[in-house]
């Protein structure tokens, strides 16, 4: 066992963790915004919106993320208007931004399906009760539908987020030196792939486990009504005899 080698590899891979987190967070955050838009489009009831979201989800869930990444990074730059556009070109010539765009578009498709499912799972009775109270559509959404739907979406959404952590490793194939890319470089330099990849694997696993914990904690915070009631005090105090 070459302990120093493990430690130095761990440390080099860990130094790339901020970059991995940056890709992860930007991808997830932009994806969340797009997913919200898609869900809204789908739930709005317009036929055209529904067809668009169906097509979007079909395309982005049906093909591998790697194809989407290559298509965005290598493919789109073939268009002249992309290369001459002052807005698109700075984004699409940078492999980092391309990865983020690909991840965001991909996760938006999966997340919008999760959100659609959780919106539909909100019990009708709750919405009817809110209507009976005379709440306006917006208040109803803000106080009843959204909180319930969020809570329902959380378990599936946390799985999706973990899939995205795993997807950040794909950035290494378009030359980004995040954790996977760094591990690859050390591996090629030392030709000890098993040791190096194990080190990287431990870090990825810890990262994913902590994300899972974090979401479990948020879920716990959001569902106080589902927890068992706190221990009642053993003896019911006798009613003082006043009379």
């Amino acid at each position, binding site marked *: 066992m070459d302990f120093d080698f493990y430690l130095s590899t761990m440390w080099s891979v860990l130094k790339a963790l901020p970059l991995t987190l940056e890709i992860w967070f930007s991808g997830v955050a932009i994806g969340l915004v797009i997913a919200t838009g898609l869900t809204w489009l789908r739930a709005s009831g317009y036929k055209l919106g529904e067809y668009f979201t169906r097509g979007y989800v079909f395309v982005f869930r049906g*093909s591998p993320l790697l*194809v989407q990444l290559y298509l965005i990074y290598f493919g789109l730059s073939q268009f002249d208007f992309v290369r001459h556009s002052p807005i698109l070109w700075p984004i699409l010539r940078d492999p980092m931004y391309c990865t983020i765009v690909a991840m965001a578009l991909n996760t938006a498709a999966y997340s919008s399906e999760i959100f659609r499912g959780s919106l539909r799972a909100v019990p009708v009775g709750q919405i009817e009760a809110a209507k009976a109270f005379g709440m306006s559509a917006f208040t109803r959404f803000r106080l009843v539908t959204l909180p319930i739907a969020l809570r329902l979406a959380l378990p599936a959404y946390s799985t999706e987020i973990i899939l995205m952590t795993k997807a950040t490793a794909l950035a290494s194939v378009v030359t980004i030196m995040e954790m996977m890319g760094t591990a690859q470089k050390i591996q090629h330099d030392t030709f000890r792939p098993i040791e190096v990849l194990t080190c990287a694997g431990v870090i990825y696993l810890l990262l994913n486990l902590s994300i899972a914990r974090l979401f479990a904690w948020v879920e716990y915070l959001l569902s106080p009504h589902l927890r068992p009631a706190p221990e009642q005090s053993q003896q019911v105090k006798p009613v003082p005899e006043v009379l």
Partner: protein
Amino acid sequence: MEFLNDLKDQVSTAYELLAAGWGVQLLWGIAWTLAVTMVSMLIGAVLGSLVAAAKLSRRGGLRFIGESYTTVFRGEPELLIIYLFYYGGTQILTGVARSTGSIGSTDILNMPSFLGGVLAVGIISGAYQAEVFRGSFLAIHRGELEAARAYGMSAWLRFRLVIVPQVLRLAVPGLGNVWQLTIKDSALISVTGVAELMLTANKAARSTHHSLLFYTLAGILYLVMTSISTPIFDKAERYTSRSFTRPK
């Protein structure tokens, strides 16, 4: 009008490129992708059922092994597992071959890329299949297992006549999902040099400089593969649950 002419040019270049041999290459790519996916699914089915059995076992040690397997192989990036099997396999093979003296001390014995890729994707697929099998086993009515035991069926007979047919029926939708996942994971083993669809598209894109065309084609072909599998799995579901639906 100019746009239409442009489109016509695009289509004719695409046709020329495909007819010049890239079309056949892409078809071979599809065949390899399907081969990789099927072999991985089979490896995954064997591993998945063993791991599911371990996770349902009464013994704590086995349960721990099963839990670790599914946690690790679902929690790691697929790319890392693939690199681990391909480059790690090369490392082990080279080490063994060097120590036995069958190759020189500076030679390298490469892991066969198909084997490495299939093992990696199969093991990942096994982790997801284990969860599917475990879920469907838990969905079998306890009463049926108890009834089988009351009839005096041996463990093997119970497994063959009661557990397997029901687990299969309940697992088909979940296996359909894992199949789709495995098709998409198979694209990643292009990094180790298996000439499946992704690598073929890559080669075509690099050597013809028509990346947009070939990546779009690859995307469409993947979409076709994933969407064709949906009706097939629907049919499998109808077949395996034929004794549970009312005849028409």
